[in-house]
């Protein structure tokens, strides 16, 4: 036991001595949370729009003012002719052009129908849909006010409620994802690189020759990364609660259980990679391509799983982070308890059991060669 | 003594509060085989790296091949060859490709490189290994190849840092024959070693202890000075004075 403690100490020394890597390990979660919380958002703010208004009457002026007043839009250009619209888009000067019909107010009052055209730069389909949506609802509420003032019947009053995330902050969907990503990065990638490094420099042979059972060596390698990832989890949770104001709505105990389970899975993956490859670069590339990319792209962290084709949905079921992120979302954001995540819990338990067994077997096989 | 190609005065290198090289002063004449001895950690490699322009000294003066070690390190590099302690040719290039690369870097033309490559391969008896990947060569061959590459461009001076480490005695003898051949062509040889029998092959030797030069003369003169039967004995007497720990 004493020896084991000595080995763990040695691993900590290795990590702390490399200041740069250490900094990255500790700073990375902070930077990511801040980026995802504030910068990486799909919210629409102050988007540049242009207006073409051939009518120039009271109604169009009022509408223009309302568009400008909303926090979604900033009017950057008032166009003199519709011919310049294409050029404006091509140069990326505006993302939405609002084109009023002619004799707008007159038509609105007498025939009851006036027209507005919304031309959006749809290179980004979602952003353009959202922009068109906001513009339409500003125009729609103007129309609603007119109907109300004139006592027109058949008004459907809409009350909208945003469940779990009343301010519609995108941080709510990203925080669980960042937790999954960081654990994968530190536990799986770092552990595999640390073990392979000993193989590459030949120090592994020396260690294996010591009276310590090999399995303890591996555990000793894993413990510091386990500690660091638990520490990082703590940082992430503190930051998300106090800086991003994303509360932990559900049980903290549930969150801890599922996180530890996931850390185990990640460590086992790291060990597996380290048994399979011979060089640090290979370990890095395998964990980068085989773990990080799937976590970023296929786990539902950024892109919803429901939008994927069935084949990829099926594939994403194999990614541990997918289950972890789903469970964290339920517990942390939706405020459900452990019972609500029984499926995620059992899948992760099964994965942990399988991966730990396989990785230990692979490690033994390698020793015997 | 012949014209000095290496000259140092109170050359010093500190890393933090550790003085690796402590005020060393010496001269090496053209065409000489100069042995640079010392225990591990005595500062040999650091001193040699300063002379090669790989490391900047903290204080002191020095010239190599007539160029100042502070201001003209790139000029120095044109006139020297260097073989490091750790084998450092490209393992993923073939034998001839390594020669071509370094010949090219020193500004030789393709034709010159081609002719020189033929000569050297023949001299070393490597003709069949021309297309062998360097990674696949046995250690002794690698060392001989590394030496040949370091003098490929016929430098004025060649620095050899423990060139025969880990090689069998037969290969070591062959290696020293190569060194003599180079010296006969007028190349000054500056060599570190901790094989004391090799020290006897040198024209003059210096012995470093704890960053300082404690003795400097021909092997015969040193034996006499320390009343020793062989160089091993001279070395032991000096090394006992060391206080610096070797890690």
């Amino acid at each position: 036991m004493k020896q084991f403690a000595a080995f763990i100490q040695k691993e900590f020394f290795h990590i702390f001595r490399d200041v740069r890597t250490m900094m990255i390990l500790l700073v990375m979660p902070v930077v990511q949370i801040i980026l995802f919380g504030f910068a990486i958002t799909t919210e629409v703010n102050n988007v540049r729009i242009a207006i073409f208004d051939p009518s120039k009457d009271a109604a169009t002026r009022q509408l223009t003012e309302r568009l400008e007043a909303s926090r979604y839009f900033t009017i950057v250009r008032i166009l003199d002719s519709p011919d310049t619209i294409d050029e404006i888009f091509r140069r990326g000067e505006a993302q939405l052009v609002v084109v009023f019909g002619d004799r707008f107010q007159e038509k609105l009052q007498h025939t009851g129908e006036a027209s507005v055209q919304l031309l959006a730069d749809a290179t980004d389909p979602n952003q353009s849909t959202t922009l068109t949506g906001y513009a339409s609802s500003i125009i729609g509420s103007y129309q609603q006010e007119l109907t109300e003032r004139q006592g027109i019947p058949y008004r459907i009053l809409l009350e909208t409620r945003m469940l779990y995330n009343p301010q519609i902050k995108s941080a709510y969907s990203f925080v669980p994802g960042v937790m999954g990503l960081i654990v994968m990065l530190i536990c799986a990638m770092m552990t595999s690189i640390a073990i392979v490094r000993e193989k590459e420099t030949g120090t592994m042979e020396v260690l294996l020759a010591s009276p310590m059972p090999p399995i303890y060596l591996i555990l000793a390698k894993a413990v510091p990364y386990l500690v660091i990832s638990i520490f990082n989890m703590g940082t992430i949770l503190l930051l998300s609660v106090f800086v991003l104001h994303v509360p932990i709505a559900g049980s903290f105990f549930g969150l801890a259980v599922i996180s530890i389970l996931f850390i185990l899975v990640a460590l086992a993956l790291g060990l597996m990679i380290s048994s399979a490859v011979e060089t640090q670069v290979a370990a890095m590339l395998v964990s980068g391509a085989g773990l990080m990319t799937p976590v970023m792209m296929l786990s539902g962290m950024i892109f919803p799983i429901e939008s994927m084709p069935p084949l990829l949905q099926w594939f994403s079921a194999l990614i541990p982070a997918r289950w972890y992120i789903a469970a964290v979302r339920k517990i942390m954001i939706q405020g459900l308890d452990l019972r609500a995540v029984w499926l995620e819990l059992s899948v992760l338990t099964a994965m942990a059991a399988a991966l730990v067994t396989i990785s230990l077997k692979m490690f033994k096989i390698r020793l015997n060669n | 003594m012949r014209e000095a190609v290496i000259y140092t005065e109170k050359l010093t290198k500190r890393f933090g509060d550790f003085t690796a090289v402590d005020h060393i002063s010496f001269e090496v004449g053209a065409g000489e085989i100069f042995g640079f001895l010392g225990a591990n950690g005595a500062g040999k490699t650091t001193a040699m790296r300063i002379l090669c322009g790989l490391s900047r000294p903290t204080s002191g003066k020095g010239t190599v091949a007539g160029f100042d070690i502070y201001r003209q390190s790139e000029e120095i590099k044109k006139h020297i060859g260097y073989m490091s302690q750790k084998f450092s040719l490209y393992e993923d290039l073939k034998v001839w490709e390594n020669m071509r690369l370094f010949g090219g870097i020193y500004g030789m033309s393709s034709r010159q490189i081609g002719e020189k490559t033929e000569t050297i391969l023949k001299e070393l008896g490597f003709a069949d290994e021309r297309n062998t990947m360097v990674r696949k060569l046995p250690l002794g061959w690698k060392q001989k190849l590394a030496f040949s590459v370091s003098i490929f461009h016929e430098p004025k001076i060649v620095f050899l840092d423990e060139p025969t480490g880990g090689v069998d005695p037969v290969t070591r003898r062959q290696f020293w024959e190569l060194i003599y051949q180079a010296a006969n062509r007028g190349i000054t040889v500056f060599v570190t070693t901790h094989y004391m029998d090799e020290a006897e092959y040198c024209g003059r030797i210096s012995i470093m202890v704890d960053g300082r030069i404690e003795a400097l003369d021909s092997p015969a003169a040193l034996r006499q000075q320390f009343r020793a039967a062989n160089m091993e004995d001279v070395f032991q007497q000096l090394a006992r004075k060391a206080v610096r720990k070797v890690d």
Partner: protein
Amino acid sequence: MLRFLLEKEFKQLLRNAFIPRLILFMPVMILLVLPWAANQEIRDLRLSVVDNDHSTFSGRLIRKAVASGYFRLADVSASDEEALQAVESGKADIILNIEPGFETNLVREGAAKVMVSANAVNSMKGGLGSYYLSSILNDYAVELRKEAGLQAGGKIAPVITLASQGRFNPHLDYKVFMIPALVVMLLTILGGFLPALNIVGEKETGTIEQINVTPVNKFVFILAKLIPYWVTGFVVLTICILIAAGGYGLVPKGNLAVLYLFAAIYVLSVSGLGLVISNHSNTLQQAMFVMWFFTLIFVLMSGLFTPITSMPDWAQAITAINPLRYFVEVMRMIYLKGSSLSDLLPHLLVLAAFALFCSLWAVLSYRKNS
């Protein structure tokens, strides 16, 4: 001298067991898989309905919502609580709750209420879902008015008809949006990571020492390191363009030569940056981590996944020094909008400045002595 160094770099690159395969397969894998995964298209939202009215009007509203194509009726609940449970268990994304007396209120009082509750854990989905429902409600009200108007013949209801049109990507295909940007990501990863691992790799094997002791010119040495990645960049770009055209029928609307010009400048800056990191690192592990760290930030702050205009001002200011941001914009503009070189002149100048700065920095940070 350059010729000999280049021979060496290319031989080493091609002889590597791993890298040439990586250069060929990674673009294929990423471009064949990721466009399908990197999809934020919101379709087929699962609708839960709480109809407290059970009238003709409420039935019509529900049918209209389902017929819109945005929603799939996934659950019918008797109460709001029940519907919430459907959302919690993940069966439904959005709830449409119609008040009792919906029809009577509409006819008698002229107004009636409905409540929409969206699961906003994914803010995008919640936002778009409720917007779709609200526009369906609007349409429905106009429809009802028209029917009633024929009978009553009373006042004229002011209606503003909205026509919206998406330019450049009329089918709102997310893949079309992502592919040009994914190409940028590939060029960044391959053009950045490989150089980042290069010089520090030579440090670890010790070969850099043999180079440092030669009179090799720093500028020439770095140039010889950059050129192979430059060529790699062209290979990767060409593979990408072929896959985009063959696999997705996506061809650039703009000039292909302009595309290559920008890629050439861009790869110089990321490779330069990679070499800078390599120069400053002592071990491969360190270089990998630093590179990973910066790549992650650069990619996230490039507008590749989320729009830059959505970022707060301080974050937008940071993106100004992110070369990825400019190249992502350029790729999308050339591919989708057919922007010409003169439209892209500001981008060209900025990227050229980046390339110059990064390669110079790479030369300066390479030290032949310590």
